[in-house]
């Protein structure tokens, strides 16, 4: 990796400069992570007196555990749902805003601020609106004959957390799509127009393919967001329920480790999550590298 | 102010890249030295070793009487003007000039006095409160000069300081730099690509080639008596015509060869040393075809093709040539004008 051609000569100063970052990283990141790795291979008896080394038994148990398999499934649905909903709405907004000349900034201002709202708060806001007894939306849905109760209906609970999580993420996706759209060279669109492509066709054959690197990047970012940053949405609203319907992996690790005190299993779940983050990070960085190169 | 003494100086970059080899040079106090050479020959490397921006891997460097090999740039009492100026973009012009003085612990009023004086000398007083971004290229160049001048260093080091300016400004700044240096009498090293800067600025010219000194001398000496084939080709524009002895036949040329020094097999003739009429003294005769006539005001160029081997010959002429494009012509030069070289050693033979 590069440095400047000319550098300062100093024996210990660079280590001193790196020390705060590296020490914190080792104490609060690497050490706990390696603990998780280690604990994932152990099992404690019910009283915490004896620990035995069980190799990969914790992992094997997880994959035959219905609750864990269910959590994987729930996480997948939640991540895909959040990503799709948030990205498609954001793309629609970005395309529309990009057409505007005078009102562009005004719309942008109205669309960016949900980024600042904490996931937990986003959850509470939608939880309130969908509140089965006093919420506005259940009231409206009732007129269509739909009975909304996310406290007993798992699908509805899932829909609720997806909406809350996606709502918060619209701003982020919108800004990236808008930046992407603004970098599409206008001459290309004009060339396509001269070639006889209509508005819709121009979008899908010229603009959208040019957006594909950003779309891909956002997909990764959104999946990461939905998997790891939405703890608050779940915890402040459904708490994984009803009947495990919204028990995403991150929430389950927390419950099993903190409330259930099942350390070995919780550690094994942590390790699996780490593996997922590693894969997603690698994908994301390879992509960024490519983008830097062209 | 100080003299600079360079003894057996060499530089090998990481990865065994040799940039400069065994350089010896004594620069007198107050002298203006110009370093020229083709791209990649090590000019910047040499200058930056003197500045302390590159470590010296071989040899010794003295500024004044002090060996400075291991010293930081700031401890060498030199100032440098960079090609892209390297002005601090977030500081005003005033602070750009003052920064080096502040770091050296000058008192406030002394800093104020020096900055004002320097600004006045360079006519940048009205810009002192501006940031570099708000200046034109020429003005930035002046500020860069000012940052060097304000320190009153023992030596100025300038690395192609004018190459980012347009042609007209470059001429103007060239003259100003020359006048400034005459007035301040500060030892200066100036790196350039530009033939005109090289010929006009320096007291002495140092021609570098692949990390070695080819020749050192006053610009006019180097022009009139290039010591090697490399210098002969590199200095002068358009460059010197070089003929292989073997390609010059006929009794006239055979006679001329007798008057050339032992070992000569390459004959060099500058474009302005060629004549349309044969002189009375022993001379060279070149039978050519006229390829192109290029009138350019005061000095025009005639491009010819030598019949014996088809090589291109450039001749400087005043006014219309006697023969039209496509016609045959013989041109001449007295043996006394010939720069004789040996192709194996690459050196001059007289």
């Amino acid at each position: 990796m590069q440095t400047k051609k000319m550098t300062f000569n100093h024996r210990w100063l660079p280590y001193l400069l790196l020390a705060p970052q590296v020490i914190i990283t080792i104490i609060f990141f690497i050490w706990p992570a390696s603990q998780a790795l280690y604990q994932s291979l152990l099992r404690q008896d019910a009283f915490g007196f004896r620990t035995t080394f069980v190799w990969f038994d914790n992992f094997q148990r997880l994959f035959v555990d219905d609750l864990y398999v269910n959590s994987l499934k729930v996480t997948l649905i939640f991540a895909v749902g959040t990503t799709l909903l948030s990205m498609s709405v954001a793309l629609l907004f970005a395309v529309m805003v990009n057409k505007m000349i005078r009102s562009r900034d005004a719309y942008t201002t109205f669309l960016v601020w949900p980024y600042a709202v904490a996931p937990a708060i986003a959850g509470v806001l939608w939880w309130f609106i969908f509140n089965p007894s006093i919420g506005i939306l259940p009231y409206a849905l009732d007129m269509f004959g739909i009975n909304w109760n996310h406290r007993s209906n798992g699908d509805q609970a899932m829909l609720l957390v997806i909406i809350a999580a996606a709502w918060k993420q619209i701003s982020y996706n919108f800004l990236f799509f808008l930046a992407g759209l603004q970098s599409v060279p206008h001459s290309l669109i004009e060339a396509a127009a001269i070639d006889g492509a209509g508005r819709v066709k121009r979008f899908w054959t010229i603009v959208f393919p040019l957006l594909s690197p950003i779309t891909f990047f956002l997909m990764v970012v959104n999946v990461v967001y939905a998997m790891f940053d939405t703890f608050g949405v779940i915890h402040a609203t459904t708490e994984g329920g009803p009947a495990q319907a919204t028990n995403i992996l991150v929430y389950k690790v927390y419950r099993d480790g903190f409330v259930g005190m099942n350390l070995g299993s919780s550690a094994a779940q942590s390790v699996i999550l780490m593996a997922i983050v590693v894969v997603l990070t690698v994908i994301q960085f390879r992509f960024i590298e490519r983008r830097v190169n062209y | 102010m100080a003299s600079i003494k360079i003894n057996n100086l060499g530089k090998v970059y990481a990865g065994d890249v040799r940039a400069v080899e065994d350089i010896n040079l004594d620069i007198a106090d107050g002298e203006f030295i110009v370093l020229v050479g083709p791209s990649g020959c090590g000019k910047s490397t040499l200058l930056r070793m003197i500045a302390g921006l590159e470590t010296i891997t071989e040899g010794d460097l003295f500024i004044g009487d002090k060996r400075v090999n291991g010293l930081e740039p700031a401890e060498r009492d030199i100032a440098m003007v960079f090609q892209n100026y390297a002005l601090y973009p977030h500081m005003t012009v005033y602070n750009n000039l003052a920064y080096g003085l502040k770091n050296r612990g000058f008192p406030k009023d002394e800093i104020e006095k020096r900055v004002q004086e320097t600004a006045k000398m360079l006519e940048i007083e009205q810009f002192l409160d501006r940031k570099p971004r708000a200046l034109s290229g020429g003005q930035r160049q002046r500020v860069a000069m000012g940052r060097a001048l304000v320190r009153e260093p023992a030596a100025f080091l300038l690395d192609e300081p004018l190459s980012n300016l347009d042609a007209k400004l470059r001429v103007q700044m060239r003259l100003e730099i020359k006048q400034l240096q005459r007035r301040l009498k500060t030892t200066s090293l100036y790196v350039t690509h530009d033939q005109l800067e090289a010929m006009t600025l320096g007291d002495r010219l140092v021609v570098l080639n692949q990390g070695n000194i080819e020749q050192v001398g006053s610009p006019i000496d180097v022009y009139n008596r290039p010591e090697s084939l490399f210098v002969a080709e590199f200095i002068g524009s358009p460059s010197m015509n070089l003929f292989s002895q073997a390609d010059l036949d006929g009794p006239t040329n055979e006679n001329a060869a007798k008057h050339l020094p032992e070992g000569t097999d390459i004959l060099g003739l500058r474009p302005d040393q060629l004549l349309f009429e044969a002189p009375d003294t022993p001379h060279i005769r070149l039978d050519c075809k006229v390829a192109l006539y290029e009138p350019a005001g005061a000095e025009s160029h005639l491009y010819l093709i030598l019949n014996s081997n088809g090589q291109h010959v450039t001749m400087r002429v005043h006014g219309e040539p006697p023969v039209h494009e496509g016609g045959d012509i013989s041109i001449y030069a007295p043996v006394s004008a010939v720069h004789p070289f040996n192709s194996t050693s690459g050196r001059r033979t007289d």
Partner: protein
Amino acid sequence: MVENNRWGNILAHTILIFGVALVVFPVYVAIIASTHPSGTFLRGTIPLLPGGEAWENYKTVMFEGRSRAGTPPISLMLWNSFVMAMAITIGKLSISLLSAFAIVYFRFPFRLFFFWIIFLTLMLPVEVRIVPTFQVVADLGMLNSFAGLSIPLIASATATFLFRQFFMTIPEEMLEASRVDGAGPFKFFKDILLPLSITNIAALFVIMFIYGWNQYLWPLLITTDPNYYTIVMGIQRMVTGGDSEPLWHLVMATVVLAALPPVLVILFMQRLFVKGLTETEK
């Protein structure tokens, strides 16, 4: 524009106005709800027009807290959030600037190794190592403290990489010129590097303040003493704590207060925010 279709524009405006309404709606409802007395929520649906109890409700959550809302007064939690967010932001910026400076402007043994250690933080978010991290913090006696709330979160690969990237774009000659001018590493950092980085610092400041303010899982884990509750996690205790229906008017007043500071930061520093977001790429 290739062709300016009038109906197309009207359609676009319609979609956008509808979209903006959709985005704003939850917050509008929250603001409205926070202005009603508690009685309103006992019958029927959430009101859509403001009530007259705004002052009363906000005063209650701000200063009375516990007895009526089931939490400490919000003012304390707001303060805690602010301290935590500022500590995280300043901490992240400082240590990232220092590490980037070391990585770009020094050559030393194990440089690459340290770079990878910092890179690892990207792959290890708190969420995947909850229990062991909690154990470390507990062992260090940092539970229920501001140090515990902030220090474990201030390692930042993102900021380090951004500064590294920015430093690499600063011309080589900037360092050379300042060395000729007599600046050592500290002077160069303070007089040249920091001032040149100021927009990047400001942009990251916005992003990281929001990140710090919105922390949820971490304060939830390590605070049991209500004096260290932060507002974002505090809300959860109001919503799910107890068996009865939450006191919605007070919850919503709290929600509004909790969301306000970061939203204001974004609105007032939109340009920096967009720069920070799109340039850090995460």
